[in-house]
Every structure is written in structure tokens, then in C-alpha cells.
């Protein structure tokens, strides 16, 4: 069966520090991969999605970036964090076919001080 792992679960970082959140999927190949941010009490905002290695689509211009160095690995990064980057970050995957449900990781709670 397919599983998705996301880490760390919790992260506290100072303003201006770099960020690297990692997500990996097991049990499937060529998945679509997604990064979302959920502000407190709000819905999900799609940040990036990828349909293949090295293919990244950005939904919201900001100081975050994403990379997909391997088929089942998706990384969310920042060179310099802002206070506004605080939130709950969720990674998700779906099969490569169109219009399939997404399956989510357990999320990372990021607090910027």
C-alpha cells in the first residue's frame, strides 16, 4: 500500500533562517505531488505541485520554492523565512491519472519567531 511521510512534524525557526521540509511517498511510482499551506482556522492554499521529476508549478509567488530531485521526493524550501510563513504545511500525493483524490501527510507545524 502507498504511504506518505512528511517531516519534521513541528519546527520553530527564527526570521531570516532557511527552511527545508521533506516529503516522500512509498508504494507508487510517478505520483503527482503537492505542497499546501493552511493558516490557522483557514482552508488550504496550494503552493506548488509537480507531475514529474524536475517539473514544478508554482501557484503563489513568494519566498518559498519547491524541488523534486527524485520521483517520490518533494522538498519545500526557503532561503529566508518571513513571519508570514508561519502555518501548517501539508504534503499530498495523487496517482498520475487525472482527477484522482489526494492523500495527505500528517503535516508540519511551522512557527517563525
Amino acid at each position, binding site marked *: 500500500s502507498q504511504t506518505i511521510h512528511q517531516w519534521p512534524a513541528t519546527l520553530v525557526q527564527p526570521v531570516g533562517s532557511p527552511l527545508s521540509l521533506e516529503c516522500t511517498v512509498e508504494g507508487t511510482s510517478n505520483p503527482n505531488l503537492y505542497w499546501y499551506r493552511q493558516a490557522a482556522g483557514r*482552508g*488550504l492554499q496550494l503552493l506548488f505541485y509537480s507531475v514529474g521529476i524536475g517539473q514544478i508549478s508554482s501557484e503563489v509567488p513568494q519566498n518559498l520554492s519547491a524541488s523534486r530531485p527524485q520521483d517520490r521526493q518533494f522538498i519545500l524550501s526557503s532561503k529566508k523565512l518571513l513571519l508570514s510563513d508561519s502555518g501548517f504545511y501539508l504534503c499530498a500525493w495523487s496517482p498520475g491519472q*487525472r482527477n484522482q483524490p489526494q492523500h495527505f501527510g*500528517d503535516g508540519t507545524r511551522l512557527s517563525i519567531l
Partner: protein
Amino acid sequence: AQTVTQSQPEMSVQEAETVTLSCTYDTSESDYYLFWYKQPPSRQMILVIRQEAYKQQNATENRFSVNFQKAAKSFSLKISDSQLGDAAMYFCAYESNNDMRFGAGTRLTVKP
């Protein structure tokens, strides 16, 4: 651009009773899917039910069912025989061509 609207920020239901959560969406696409996700306090996103836009029959999963009105672009979720474990945030979502959009969510409280 596709948008998803959940007009009820909060809803409450008595245990064992029925509650309906509303969702509307806006799209010019003809081929798309709709989903309801549940997010309990653990914050894990759990797929509850899905509906293919080309299917007229409403999807059903045990106590969960949807009322899909394609012309009205409405996709409501009905929870029957509500249980305490149903308490969570519920998100309506729309997907077309790998582009998924979520509503702002409805917080459901279940009263014992």
C-alpha cells in the same frame, strides 16, 4: 479561475441526528471531480467522499452522502446518524487537470 465556497463557517448537530454541509463552486470546465475531506483535531486530512462530475448519481459512503447539483454547481455533504467522532473541520474540494481547490472549511461540532 475555479473557486470553492463553503458558506457555513460553523455547524453543530446533535448526536444521532443528520446534518448537511453546503458547498458551491465555480468553474467553466465540464470534466472535474469533487471531494469532501475531513480534518479532525489531529489535523490529518482524510478523504470522506468523492463525486465524478459526469455521474448523475449521488455518491454514498456509509453514513455520508452528497447532493450533487451540477447545473447549480452545488455539492453538499449529508452526515446521517452523527457520531462524536464526526466532529472535525470539513473541506469541500474541486479538482480538474491536477488543479485542486479547497473551500475555507466548515467546523462541525457534535453534541452528545
